[in-house]
């Protein structure tokens, strides 16, 4: 195995996989969707007279999008391996080396590359892109809400921007930690040469790219006017853009399932010798809990959208009351995914900060076992709480009390995570860096998000607060205030390992304070209008809400500037930052034991682990 890296790249200009890259994928995707579109236009029968729904356009749209998907995945080379297997063969060694991106330079980032470090950088790139687009949409929303009468955006455009912002950000936050850092850092941290299934790893990334196009496509054919939750029957009467949402979710769910299986297997089977579960870094637990939660959640999401597509295109009645279906079915399916999903987002971000806490306080992680228990407790309970999103839907009032119980129980394991973080800070040697302050920011934001969550978990209080801006502010506090803060700290913390250069300290501070102050200003304002009675997802509101909305808009612009400073920091530091030493933070996890640039299979000799990674602190004399 150690001689693998000495092999030459493939013989020149032979294999099909050498010719495939993102451009062939785009070309094949576009061509096949156009072909299928024309064929469907020509051959699909007209809707019957008096049909309940006009489903022909939906059929054509969905078929064209499927064709795009198949064409893109074929063009990127995802099918080469499976096709070889069908013929009873496999990829040759040199082809595997080519796929791993050996000696290829920057081109490997545009290919179906299997090296986990390349996939990590690809994920980082697409996460930044998603935040750029989703953040831009947030700015459009906030600009429109700067004045009470709205009208700057057309209501349909506004609704579509709200829905697209939501679903883009949900996907962005799901992948923001497990994507870049789960792929780049995690295998090195556990002392593995790569992921368990490198080709599945590449597949999970390119599926996200394939998914993004139908979402953008949907913007031009009516938009996603239903909010990110796409409740039926509203989604049933929504324009064709809804088909873009459906395809986006289905393909993204595939990506999540693939990544989940891959990461879980990697962590279970490929940890270095001696890395027992007690010695496995807490970040690994966070990543595994996140993707393991996604494993039951996303198949249900996938299913809910397939049924939605059937209702639209084939005139079935899963969610259509007139035909015997029920909107409550959709709500249940959606939130069975939707509630574990917020912890899919949150857990790895908190775990990443737990990983950084000992490094920046120079003392051991406080109560490792409690941390693991907290993560496990949240994961276990989170699949039992979904109907708290449906307290006032009227679906099952008798179940409100049990769901209130499970929801409030989650505060116990969540409290454990707080205990671990404050326990680690206590009497530590505080090293003032952006990641250390991010821990403080997480504690503050997550405290507000958590306490407001208790109000919302209470049925009578929820009867007032549900569907108001209060809820919007609450989940932004958890997903953005806690989740994104963890992801940004991870970026600064692991930047030296991923790029070989230090993240510009000054820029990291400027961006940190602008984002955190802007964030708190923006969402405190949003709590205020929610309490005063402003519903969510409105493009106009009563004039009495104007002041607080304006405050929120100003806060939002501050966040935007802070995030642009961060983006500038990423680009400038990656190009001309200070060269990073091997272990700039003097941390004890394995990823800091490899040199930059990290060789193809990470370690020449696989490490043997003899203790956990938190052995800071002088022994007591």
């Amino acid at each position, binding site marked *: 195995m150690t001689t693998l890296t000495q092999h030459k790249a493939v013989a020149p200009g032979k294999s099909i996989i050498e010719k495939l890259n993102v451009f062939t994928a785009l070309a094949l995707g576009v061509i096949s969707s156009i072909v299928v579109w024309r064929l469907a236009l020509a051959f699909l029968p007209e809707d019957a007279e008096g049909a309940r729904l006009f489903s022909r356009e939906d059929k054509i749209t969905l078929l064209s999008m499927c064709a795009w998907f198949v064409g893109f995945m074929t063009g990127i080379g995802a099918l080469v391996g499976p096709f070889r297997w069908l013929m009873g063969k496999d990829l040759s060694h040199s082809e595997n080396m080519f796929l791993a991106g050996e000696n290829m330079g920057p081109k490997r980032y545009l290919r179906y590359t299997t090296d986990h470090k390349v996939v990590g950088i690809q994920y980082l790139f697409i996460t930044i892109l998603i935040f750029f687009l989703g953040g831009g949409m947030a700015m459009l929303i906030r600009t429109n809400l700067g004045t009470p009468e709205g009208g700057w955006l057309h209501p349909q455009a506004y609704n579509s921007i709200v829905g697209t912002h939501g679903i883009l950000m949900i996907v962005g936050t799901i992948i923001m930690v497990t994507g870049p850092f789960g792929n780049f850092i995690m295998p090195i941290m556990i002392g593995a040469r790569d992921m368990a299934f490198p080709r599945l790893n590449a597949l999970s990334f390119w599926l996200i790219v394939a998914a993004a196009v139908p979402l953008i496509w949907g913007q031009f054919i009516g938009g996603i006017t239903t909010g990110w939750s796409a*409740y039926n029957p509203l989604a049933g009467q929504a324009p064709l853009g809804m088909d873009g949402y459906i395809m986006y979710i289905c393909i993204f769910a595939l990506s999540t399932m693939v990544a989940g299986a891959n990461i879980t297997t990697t962590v279970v089977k490929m940890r270095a010798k001696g890395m027992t579960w007690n010695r496995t870094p807490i970040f690994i637990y966070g990543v595994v809990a996140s993707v393991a939660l996604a494993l039951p959640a996303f198949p249900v999401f996938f299913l809910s959208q397939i049924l939605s597509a059937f209702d639209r295109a084939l005139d079935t009645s899963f969610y259509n009351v007139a035909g015997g279906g029920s909107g409550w079915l959709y709500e249940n399916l959606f939130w069975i995914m939707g509630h574990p999903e917020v912890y899919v987002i949150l857990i790895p971000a908190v775990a990443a900060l737990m990983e950084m806490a000992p490094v920046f306080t*120079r003392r051991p992680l*406080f109560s490792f076992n409690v941390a693991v228990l907290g993560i496990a407790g949240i994961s276990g309970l989170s699949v039992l709480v979904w109907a708290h999103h449906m307290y006032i839907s009227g679906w099952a009032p008798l179940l409100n009390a049990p769901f209130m119980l499970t929801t409030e129980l989650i505060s116990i394991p969540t*409290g454990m995570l707080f*205990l671990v973080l*404050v326990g680690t800070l206590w009497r530590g040697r505080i090293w003032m860096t952006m990641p250390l302050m991010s821990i403080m920011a997480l504690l503050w934001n997550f405290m507000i998000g958590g306490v407001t969550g208790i109000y919302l978990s209470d049925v009578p209080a929820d009867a*007032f607060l549900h569907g108001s801006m209060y809820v919007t502010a609450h989940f932004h506090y958890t997903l953005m205030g806690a989740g994104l803060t963890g992801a940004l700290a991870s970026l600064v913390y692991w930047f030296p390992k991923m790029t070989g250069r230090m993240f510009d300290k000054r820029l990291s501070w400027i961006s940190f304070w602008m984002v955190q102050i802007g964030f708190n200003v923006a969402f405190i304002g949003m709590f205020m209008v929610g309490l005063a009675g402003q*519903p969510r997802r409105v493009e106009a509101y009563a004039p009495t809400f104007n002041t607080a909305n304006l405050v929120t808009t100003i806060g939002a612009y501050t966040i935007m500037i802070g995030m642009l400073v961060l983006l500038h920091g990423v680009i400038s530091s990656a190009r001309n930052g200070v060269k990073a030493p091997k272990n700039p933070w*003097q941390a004890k996890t394995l990823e800091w034991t490899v040199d930059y640039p990290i060789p193809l299979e990470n370690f020449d000799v696989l490490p043997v682990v003899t203790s956990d990674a938190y052995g800071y602190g002088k022994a007591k004399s």
Partner: protein
Amino acid sequence: MTNLMTPKSPQWWKKDDVKKTFILWILCTAVIGYVGVEFHVRNMVDPASETMSGVISLMRVFTWAAAPVAGLVSAICLTVLTSKRHYGDNPPAEADHEIRNSPKTAAVWVVVSGIMCLFALVAGLIVLQHDNEAVLDSQAIQVNVTGQQWVWNFDYANGARSEDLYLPVNKPVVFHITSVDVKHSFWVVQMGIKMDANPGYTTEAAVTPNKIGVFDVRCAELCGLLHAYMQTKVHVVSQADYDAWLSAHGATEAGA
């Protein structure tokens, strides 16, 4: 735990940073509790029903119950941030101790959060039980609420129909809520009740308005293009005015 002690100060509660944290804890708890309660109560609408008053007092109670926890976290963060900080590109010296856990602390933490969780649950259940019973009141005024894109329609027992809701003060009312197209959510803001209007189903909500005045009904579930404009007013009037309004409207409806 024994390892919290050092030879210098045999009792952990006499250490400077513990004392400092304790004082900060009390201060932070007071500030967070007071500001949190005021923030919620001042921003929330003036209640026009017992239900809404109940919501406001629940928020008050929950905020004060959460304040000591939030206060402790804040106090520890403040103590840590005001202790010696290290700036620079290289790490500071490692901490003096290597406490890896403290089962007692963890146990206390879990037990306390369990008790608070139980408290929140019981407090919520009591109010919930009260709300649920109200729906079964057969003496109450019955109003059928129908949502459609993008208006509300109210049907009264005598056949009257309106787009503004009229209710007598201090009389219990039960709403039977449904929709003719997509999902809406019937929210009487100042009365603190909300219930989804589902096509094909009828759901119930109950309230007793206790204040004469004009209040807001808004749709709280995205229902398409003009969701933001799907609002109307509820006029809470005296029993005499209500009867007059009802007979006038019932008659015109019947005559039409």
